[in-house]
C-alpha cells in the first residue's frame, strides 16, 4: 500500500476515450506470456516507489497500444510522448476500466507512475481495485474532465494538483475544481491504509463474532473431511 498523501502534483496525460476496458489497460495473457509475469493475483504488484527505474519500464499498462508488434515503443501512443511519459495523473473518459474484472490494471497504472485517475466515471470493480491498490480515483463531470484535458493539451508541462484535503483539482492556469469523495476512502488514501489496516481494529469484535457463529452455525467450521 502507498504511503499516505494529502496531495499529488504532476503532469497529466489526457486519455479521454470512453469505455476503456480493464483488460485493455492490463491485457492478461499478453503480459504474462511475453514477459513471464506469472502472478494471477491482482494486488501483488510492487508500489512504484518500491520499484527502480528498470522495473518501471517493464510495467505493462496499455501494452496493446504502447508497444508495436516487434516490441518497440509505439510513438503514436500518448504514453510514449513527452511530456506525458512522466505523467502522474491520468485524465480519462466515461466508464474508464469497465469490464467487471479484478485485474492488475490499477497496480500497472501505479507501475507507470500514475498516482491518480480523474475520469468521468469508472467501472465499479476497477474503482474498488484502485482503492485497494492505492491509485486515487476521482470522479468528475465529463465537462470538467474535458476542460482539464483542453488546458493540459494547451500547456502540457504545467502541473496539475489533486488536493485530497481541500478536495479540489487545480492548475496554475485555472481555478480549483471541487470533487466529492467518500470520507472513509479519502481518509484511507491520506493515511495510506490497506484493507487490513481498516479491518484490524475490529479484531475483538471479529473474535466474538466467530465464537457466536461457531455455536449458531457449527457446520461452517468443517467437521468432516478435515485436511488430508
Amino acid at each position: 500500500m502507498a504511503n499516505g498523501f494529502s496531495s499529488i502534483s504532476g503532469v497529466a496525460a489526457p486519455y479521454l476515450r470512453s469505455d476503456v476496458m480493464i483488460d485493455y489497460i492490463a491485457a492478461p495473457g499478453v503480459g504474462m506470456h511475453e514477459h513471464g509475469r506469472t502472478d494471477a493475483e491482482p494486488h501483488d504488484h510492487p508500489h512504484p516507489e518500491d520499484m527502480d527505474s528498470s522495473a518501471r519500464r517493464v510495467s505493462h499498462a496499455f501494452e496493446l497500444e504502447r508497444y508495436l508488434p516487434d516490441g518497440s515503443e509505439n510513438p503514436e501512443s500518448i504514453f510514449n510522448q513527452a511530456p506525458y511519459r512522466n505523467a502522474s495523473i491520468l485524465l480519462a473518459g466515461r466508464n474508464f476500466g469497465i469490464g467487471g474484472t479484478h485485474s492488475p490494471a490499477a497496480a500497472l497504472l501505479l507501475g507507470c507512475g500514475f498516482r491518480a485517475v480523474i475520469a468521468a466515471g469508472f467501472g465499479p470493480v476497477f474503482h474498488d481495485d484502485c482503492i485497494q491498490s492505492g491509485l486515487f480515483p476521482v470522479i468528475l463531470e465529463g465537462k470538467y474532465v474535458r476542460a482539464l484535458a483542453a488546458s493540459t493539451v494547451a500547456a502540457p508541462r504545467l502541473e496539475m494538483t489533486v488536493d485530497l484535503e481541500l478536495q479540489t483539482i487545480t492548475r496554475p492556469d485555472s481555478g480549483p475544481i471541487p470533487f466529492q469523495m467518500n470520507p472513509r476512502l479519502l481518509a484511507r488514501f491520506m493515511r495510506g491504509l490497506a484493507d487490513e489496516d481498516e479491518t484490524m481494529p475490529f479484531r475483538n469484535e471479529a473474535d466474538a463474532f466467530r465464537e457466536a457463529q461457531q455455536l449458531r452455525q457449527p457446520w461452517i467450521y468443517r467437521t468432516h473431511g478435515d485436511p488430508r
Partner: protein
Amino acid sequence: MKRREFIKTGIGAGVGCGFVPVQSLFAQQAAGKTLFDKIWEAHEISFLGGVTSVLHVDRMMLPDSGPSSIRRLLQAGEAIRNPELVWAVADHQVSTSPERYTNRSLNLGSVADEFPEMKEQLAAMGIQAFGIDDPEQGIQHVVGPETGLTLPGMLMVAGDSHTCTHGALGCVSWGGETAQNVLLTGTVIRERARNLRVNYVGALGPWVRGKDMILHTIGTLGADVGNRCAVEYAGPLVRSLSVEGRMTICNLSIEMGAATGMVAPDDTTFEYVASREFAPRGALWDQALAYWRGLPTDDDATLYRDETIDMTNVEPQVTWGISPEHVIGVSDRIPSPDDAPFEKRDAWRRALEYTRLTPGDTIADTPVDEVFIGSCAESRIEDLRAAAEVVRGRQVAPNVLAWAIAGSRPVKRQAEAEGLDRIFRDAGFDWREPGCSKCYGSNGELVAQGKRSVSNSNRNYVGRQGIDAITHLVSTPMAAAAAIAGRIVDVRKLMAGEIA
C-alpha cells in the same frame, strides 16, 4: 449482533459510479429481506455507517500463490486468522499437459512444488490445499462446490473475479479481496450491494442452456447492468436447471459488472450438496438444512431492480465483439455500429475492427482456428457430456486446434469412466489435465497470435486469450460444433444433419 440504523447522510453511497439509491436501502430495512441481505447481515461484524460494513469470512479461497502468501505471513511472524476456513488450489499457473506431473517445469512459477512443500504445514493449521498431485485438484470454482467446501448461506471470498460462480449454491461469494487482509483478519470491509433480480420465463429450446441464458441477459441488459448489485437469478427456468447450469449463469455475473450472482438454495441444491466431502452430516446436516431453507428471498422484500428475461425463441448465443454484451443469436447477422446506441457506436466500431468482422454478414460460417472447451464457466461433467454428444462419431475439422479440459480431476475421472475422453480423443480433440489454461493464459497456454478462437469460457476481451486473438464466447455444445465444422455453426443444425 445489534444492527444500527443507517446514518442518513448517505456517506459511503455514491462513491463509486453513478447513482446509489440510499432510499431503497432504507426501504429494505422495513420490508422482508432478500437472499443477499440475509446472508450479508448474518456476517456483519460491524456496521460502519453509510453502506459499509466489516464482514466475517466463512471461506477464503486462494489460488496458486496461496502457499507462498501464507508462508510470507508466517515468516513475518504473523498468525493466520481462522486457518480452518482457508483453502487453496493450484489452477491458474498449472500446465494442462499430461506431462505436467513428471515434467514439473511445465508449470509456471514454482506452483507445482510449493503445494507439496507446504502440504503438511498447511494441514497442521487446518488449511486444505490441492496441488497438482492432489486427486481433487481443479479450477477453484469447480473444486469448491464439488468438495462441499462451498455451502449455502456462506460468505466466501477470493482474489479471483469468477468467485461469483459459487453463488449458484445460495451463498454470497465475490472476488477482488486481498489474501493479506483476509488471512490476517478473517474479515473483509465492503460496501453493500443493491439487489437486482433477474427472472427467467419461457422455455429453453433444444441445445439452449445456462450459458445462452446469461449471455442473452448480458446482451439484453448490458455489461454494466449489475454495477454495485448482487444479482439473484430466479424464476421457473432457473429452478429447472441443475446446480452445474446455475453455476454457469452465476459465473458470468461479473461480466455484467455485478458484485456477485446467486440462486436461492432449493432441493436441487441440497441434493447436490449432500454427501460432498466437506458437507455437514447427521445432526449438523439437519441443523444446516433448516437454516438454509430460511434463506430464499422473502415475498415482500424490496428490490432495487427487477428484470424479466423471456427465453422463448432465444437461440444459442455467439459473441461478435470484445465484450460479453456484444452477443447475438447464431442465426443473426453481425450488427452495424450505426445501429448501436449513440454512446456505444465508437466501442462497437473498435470491437468489429478487432474481431475483423463485417456488419451484415452472418456470424455463422465465420471460420475458426482454435476451439477451447474448459474454464470455470462450463467444464463440469454435464457440460462435457453435452459436448461429447455433439462430437461423438464426428471429426474435428482439419486445421482446427481443439482442446477439451475437465474442470477438475474428479470431473476428469468421471468423464473417463463414461468414456467421454475416448469420444473427444477419437474426434481429434486434445484431452488435457485440469486448470484455467487458455481462458486466461496465465499458465502460458494461449491462443496463437491473431487466431480466431471459439471458446466456452467467459471473457472475450481484447487480448484475453492471446495477443490479437479473437474470442467468440459460446456454450459448450456450440464450441464442440464449431470444432467439428471448422466454422461457427448452429449446433441444432449440425445435430439435425443439416450441416455436412
